[in-house]
């Protein structure tokens, strides 16, 4: 039973974080933890595409998988630090990845942008197809596979709007789906369609798909998620081709990842309050405000890094990062003059990431 995608994703993440973060940070990334550390790390290490791609992953299953990869010699367990477990990526893993890279659909994933959108889109699609398939046969007596208010609302609206020319709408939906599915490898298209329910027919469960396609349950789930991401990307970039499908995603926003509290800080920050003033105003610790600012720095393309870090300090920090080859705050802190703060280091890590993506300017 093949479990290539799951292995490929874990190894890719392990490669990128190269012992800088504990094993549980990989888990947090995969399940899409809302923790700011997880989101920041995702950008810093360039693994944001895998954010939230496996939301239902159970911790016990994850641990089991890590153990399996360790036994295979693809990962090595490193010494524990305060009961946190670290792992290293091995040469063998490098070999494994280069050997499988071509066949793994890792490029489908765009977790940080699509994770939420994709699951809503997928639920809407499952319910829409089931509903239309039944209504077309005048059957209003079926058990919906999705019990989720967003999808229910969406399908109700579609039904009310398209009732009059529903056959045309269904035909259009069918054609657009075929168009998308034809771009996929045969196995993926079959797997995707096998999950669908409709008139007189209920789709396969994850476990049944796993047996049919000789894949692990992890890979079935990841395939469905990856395909949804891939679909949305195509739909959004070719709105005019995928008219009906675009209506299914048009109202779904990519969520702003700022926490509510950070958002309040951001509002004050935009009104030119200093961090100290914001802390005072909001009855929060100064360090909390710094946390927020590091968070804001990730998303605000005009973030004024130079208000918090002088050019000399910036150079010191960048130099220390290169020198220590580390993204660990503590390691970097030890390698710079003591008057440079953790906050300044965090900002520079964000800056470095943005710079690499071509979006940042040290202003």
């Amino acid at each position, binding site marked *: 039973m093949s479990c290539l995608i799951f292995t490929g994703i874990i190894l890719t993440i392990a490669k990128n974080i190269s012992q800088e973060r504990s094993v549980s940070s990989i888990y947090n990334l995969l399940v899409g933890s809302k923790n700011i550390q997880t989101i920041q790390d995702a950008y810093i290490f360039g693994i944001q595409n895998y954010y939230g791609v496996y939301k*239902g992953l159970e911790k016990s299953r994850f641990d089991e998988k890590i153990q399996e990869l360790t036994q295979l010699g693809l990962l090595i367990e490193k010494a524990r630090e305060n009961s946190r477990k670290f792992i290293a990526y091995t040469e063998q893993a490098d070999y494994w990845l280069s050997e499988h890279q071509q066949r793994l659909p890792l490029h489908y994933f765009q977790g940080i942008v699509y994770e939420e959108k994709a699951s809503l889109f997928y639920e809407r699609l*499952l319910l829409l*197809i089931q509903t*239309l*398939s039944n209504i*077309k*046969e005048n059957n*209003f*007596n*079926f*058990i*919906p*596979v*999705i*019990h989720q*208010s967003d999808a229910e609302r969406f399908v109700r609206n579609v039904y009310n709007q398209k009732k009059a020319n529903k056959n045309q709408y*269904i*035909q259009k*939906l*069918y054609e657009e*789906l*075929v168009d998308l*599915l034809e771009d996929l490898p*045969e196995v993926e*298209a*079959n797997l*995707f*369609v*096998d999950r*669908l*329910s*409709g*008139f*007189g*027919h*209920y*789709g*396969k*469960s*994850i*476990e*049944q798909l796993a*047996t049919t396609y000789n894949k692990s349950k992890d890979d079935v789930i990841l395939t469905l998620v990856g395909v949804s991401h891939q679909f949305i990307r195509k739909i959004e970039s070719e709105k005019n081709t995928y008219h009906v499908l675009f209506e299914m995603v048009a109202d779904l926003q990519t969520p702003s990842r700022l926490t509510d509290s950070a958002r309040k800080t951001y509002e004050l920050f935009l009104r030119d309050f200093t961090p100290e003033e914001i802390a005072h105003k909001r009855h929060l610790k100064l360090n909390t405000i710094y946390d927020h600012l590091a968070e804001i720095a990730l998303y605000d393309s005009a973030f004024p890094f130079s208000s918090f870090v002088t050019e000399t300090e910036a150079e010191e920090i960048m130099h220390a990062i290169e020198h220590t080859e580390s993204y660990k705050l503590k390691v970097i802190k030890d390698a710079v003059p003591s008057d440079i703060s953790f906050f300044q280091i965090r900002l520079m890590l964000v800056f470095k990431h943005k710079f690499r993506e071509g979006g940042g300017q040290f202003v």
Partner: protein
Amino acid sequence: MSKTMQLEQKLERYFQYDQFRKGQREIIEDVLQAKNVLGVLPTGSGKSICYQLPSLLMDGLTIVVSPLISLMIDQVKELRSKNFKRVVALNSLVGYEERQFIYQHLNQYKLLYISPELLQQEQFIKKLSSIKISLFVIDEAHCISQWGHDFRPDYLKLGAIIKQLESPPVLALSATAAPAVQEDIIENLHLKTITKHIYPMDRKNLTFIIEKVSTIHEKIELMTTYLGKHLGPALIYFSSRIQAENMVETLRRMMPSLKVAFYHGGIDPVDRIQIQQQFMNDQLDVICCTSAFGMGINKSNIRLIIHFHIPSQIEAYIQEVGRAGRDGKPSICLLLFGVGDIAIPKNIIENELPHEDEIRVVMQQLKQMGEEGLELPVRDLELYERFQISETKWRFLRFHFEKHGMIMAKNIVYDPIQWQRVFRQLNKWIQSRNSYKKQELEEMIDLVETTACLRETIYKKFQKGYSTPIFQCCSNCGIDLSKWAPSVKPARDEEIPWKDKLRKLLVGGI
């Protein structure tokens, strides 16, 4: 037109059934006269119609307390699919916003399913008491009694809640309530008068077979022999999730022509519906499951129910075999029993309620939290993770701590004498609960060991005598399987290329 005729027309109009089943009309008529009713009807006799129909005919909201979230969701879906739209379920799966929406629009619903946990909220009860409650239904009412096989401490508060709601008429329903349990239900609900409708629970179309084996291979062999004769819808019950999953693989290997899948409480929500409905829709022959499967399942042509492991009580056994032959045709209930099998249910019993040392640790930690001036967190999860006990154990303890005033809202109220006393009382109570459950298990084991008629042994706790079986009675009375010829067609599920499948689903035809 007579009154009963009118009821039948309503039944036809709202639920598309042309007549009432045994007991339904009698209960509904009493309910419509605002009497308090206790109804004990065998599984598969359509208990839910007893409140679903009145909810439409009475003015106000019908509240249904139901212990199982999945059951609630299924019922709501089924009602909505029958065009009964003014129904809603409130349970822990419903998000904050949606819950608020439901609270605001309560008077627009006719039927509200709710979990006993959510019904505990003071704010919500206030809200409910401001609208007219036509009927208060307690489904699976044996949960109220500590002698019921599925006792839930939250159910004990229902009596007080009914009073707070100004005592609307009550309908308590159960499929398995022995006389002692019935008395307990009535007492705990504090009802002065109640009309009882108790119907015999024996099913004359079931044949009971018990086979004792010494190895698991023998069990598997017997299981496949029966499945081979049958080739149609069957259920196989296991006592653990993992064993149900593993057996699916074995069966697929040994009997490739059968369509087999598993179902248990741990599977994904979409899968839960797809598997259940594949079975209903004859895409699947056999489901390997735990006791989580079957509540509310209404497939009429299940001909074979196998218990791969011994259930822990006769009540649970009756409920599970009750899913066979709902269409009244002869069906077989096969119980496989191996020597080591008693260990599993014993273990489950011993670990269901907290142990003495667990209670001590929790109380010590609570005391310490109280001394540090800490409040209890809003989410229970944080607590039971902190105490390292299961959610059920914590819910059980919390209920008792609240009952004895040791926890009041978010505050911990420490009183050494009181706490000591509760500690002793609780342990004593748990011991008696556990020994009661062990005794129930003993009854199940006695059933396996007996040489007397199985049918008589199974039902003797609930009723005197039973109807003459229409096929063969049981393995102790003697059976001849060569005469068993269920005519059901095996499941079909075609494999066609994706494009054809999608076209068939959406456009139709090929």
